[in-house]
């Protein structure tokens, strides 16, 4: 019996049918496996390696099964955004990076796709255990949506061997003014006499990101977006800081070299092309991994302050655990989050594997932080913990990333202006650019119909 439309159509329909059966069968097989009690997704490889022991213990204590997934940072943000936009299911608990938080919590407060953890944190007595400045990073309109993984105080890593050789005492570099003077006089050098500078004092990028905008501005008490959601960078302190950073990064008297990341940074550090670099706790692990031959040659010191007696640290980056509203068991997810980040049994190994100090005050007296690190030959945990209370607050916003990039544009334009006007004072130019940048951020803020007007808007403008 012939198939009336013809053999070709029959072949197509049969192929489609077989494919459909195969897909259905595969789905049925997947559905028959017991699902995990918690799907836990994260982006950092070192966290993935580090959490295994804690997760195994949690599974044993609670009789549950947890599935860990490692997803690339950018892919994780894209997938979470897509899931939030379309209202589809997300993992039960996710570790996200600070830069994602603004993008993932935009829109109306009631539309945020994560559980509000404020009452849970308060009820379990954790409000006092976390420092306010750290909780601020995961707060939107007064409500906390993430439990912090870290504090990330910042110090400077430096080539102690070279500084000793050239007779510079790092303890004397207590202010940036002093640092600049000593750097120019003793550190920057053309060692081979070929007209090419072979040694610079410090690694500073030419875009202003991250050192200027993410680290030095907060250290100076300037935040890009304030706690009320307003652009807060158009201040005289910012002008002064930008002008200072310009002097260090361009012109014949510059003291910095943009060493970049990864192998380029490792080579610059091992060659002595740069002597100092900004080092939050997490970065020290990267530095020691990329430069094993510098063990004993690198040390850490607090940031020079902007004025005598000022703040000697800042913060850079951060991650937290958030519980999506689609989580199947938010209570279990919350217990898991607390266990993973706060259970003291696992904190020593976590610190040894990552160099990241614990986020809670109650852990800062633990003896493991006083261990002398074999690479740095210092008790780096104690050094970072001593700075933790002084870490400045960083406030999230859906426009934070835009504001940061806009500030980077201000700096890049100021750099070009300075090159075209050597020796001239860039402050008036920087002031005008900052005012234009602030207007751009307000323009975007104003047209967002989903955000409540930032408080104190009238006073700000």
């Amino acid at each position: 019996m012939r198939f009336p439309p013809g053999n070709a159509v029959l072949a197509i329909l049969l192929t489609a049918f077989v494919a459909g059966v195969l897909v259905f069968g595969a789905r049925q097989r997947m559905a028959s496996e017991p699902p995990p009690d918690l799907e836990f997704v994260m982006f950092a490889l070192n966290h993935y390696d580090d959490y295994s022991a804690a997760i195994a213990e949690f599974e044993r204590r609670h009789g549950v099964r947890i599935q860990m997934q490692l997803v690339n940072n950018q892919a994780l943000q894209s997938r979470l955004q897509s899931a939030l936009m379309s209202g589809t299911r997300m993992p039960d608990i996710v570790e996200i990076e600070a830069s994602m938080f603004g993008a993932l919590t935009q829109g109306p407060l009631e539309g945020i796709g994560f559980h509000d953890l404020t009452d849970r944190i308060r009820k379990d007595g954790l409000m006092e255990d976390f420092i306010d400045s750290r909780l601020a990073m995961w707060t939107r309109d007064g409500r906390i949506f993430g439990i912090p993984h870290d504090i990330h105080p910042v110090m400077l890593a430096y080539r102690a061997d070279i500084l000793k050789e050239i007779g510079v005492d790092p303890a004397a570099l207590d202010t940036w003014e002093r640092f600049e003077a000593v750097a120019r006089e003793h550190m920057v050098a053309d060692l081979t006499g070929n007209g090419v500078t072979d040694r610079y004092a410090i690694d500073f990028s030419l875009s202003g990101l991250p050192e200027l905008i993410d680290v030095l501005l907060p250290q100076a008490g300037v935040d890009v977006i304030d706690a009320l959601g307003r652009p807060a960078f158009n201040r005289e302190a910012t002008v002064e800081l930008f002008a200072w950073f310009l002097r260090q990064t361009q012109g014949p008297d510059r003291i910095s070299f943009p060493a970049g990341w990864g192998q380029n940074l490792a080579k610059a550090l091992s060659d002595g092309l740069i002597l100092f670099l900004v080092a939050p706790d997490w970065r020290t692990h990267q530095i020691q991994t990329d430069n094993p031959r510098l063990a004993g040659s690198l040390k850490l010191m607090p940031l020079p302050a902007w004025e005598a007696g000022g703040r000697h640290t800042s913060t850079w980056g951060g991650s937290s655990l958030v519980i999506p509203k689609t989580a199947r068991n938010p209570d279990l997810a919350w217990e898991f989050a607390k266990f993973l980040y706060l259970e003291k049994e696992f904190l020593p190994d976590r610190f040894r594997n990552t160099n990241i100090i614990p986020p809670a005050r109650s852990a800062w007296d633990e003896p493991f932080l006083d261990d002398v690190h074999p690479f740095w030959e210092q008790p780096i945990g104690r050094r970072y913990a001593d700075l933790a209370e002084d870490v400045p607050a960083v406030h999230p916003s859906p426009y934070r990333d835009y504001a940061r990039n806009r500030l980077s544009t201000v700096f890049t334009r100021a750099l070009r202006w300075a090159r075209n006007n050597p020796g001239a004072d860039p402050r008036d130019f920087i002031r005008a650019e900052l005012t234009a940048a602030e207007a751009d951020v307000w323009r975007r803020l104003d047209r967002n119909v989903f955000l409540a007007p930032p408080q104190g808007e009238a006073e700000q403008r």
Partner: protein
Amino acid sequence: MRRRQLISAWLFLSPFLILSGVFFIYPFLWATILAFYQTSGSLHSVFVGWSNFRFVLSDPEFFRALRNTTVFAAFSVFLQLPLSLGLALLLNSRKDRWKGFFRLILFSPHLVGPIFVGILFSVLFTARFGMINRFLHHVSGWGLDLRWLADPALVMPALVLTSLWMYVGFNMIYFLAGLQNVSEDLMDAARVDGAGPWQRFVNVIVPAIKPVALFVVIMSTIGSFQLFELPYALLNGTGGPDNAGLTIVMYLYQHAFESGDLGTGAAVGWILALIIFAISMAQIRISRGLESP
């Protein structure tokens, strides 16, 4: 019989119609509607009328993106295509077995994809340690500290160089195919008449490859205006210093997917489509104008 033929025809057309409807017509209509809304993802939307278009058309960043994209497109057409044609002419003149080998070598950069190329060149362009600066310094004693991706003045040259490496072989293939239309008899006749290489090129080769050339110019222009992955990978997901590498599609991406405002993204998409349409029509008209006596 006729009815059976009709059913068969519709059955054969149905995959295309279904796929077109789902992946083209529906998104096209939805994007048109979306352009008049402000959204926070797809779950929250508010009708804002022409506000999205007004915002985009008064945003200096959009015009920066438009300028960058236009400059890139101009380099694509006036630098990349002549190079592709030159390579095609060179290869076409060879009649040995190495022709296929060189054709593969020149075409193969296109096979690896813009993301890989962007990441690769971001390493090559590194100041002081990157191969490009090392080569420049070795050859000329200059350029060791050139900041290709950190200096706004050098970002566009970096993008153009990268795209040259990636696309010149791809366009060369089209020109090679077009050169097969050149009549050998006409070339011989021109040679016999004393026409030099340049005269043979202008009077015999160019008219013969004009349809292919017009196609390549239009496709290259459209592709240039849709540039996204290459600068996104090269500049690490940003528009580069002072947005020197920001393209229109990157601007669309920032609004639609990073800010979650699909409505503004749709408005940018519509503006881009109209720009590409206008330029393509202009190119076709110019080409027809050149053809008419």
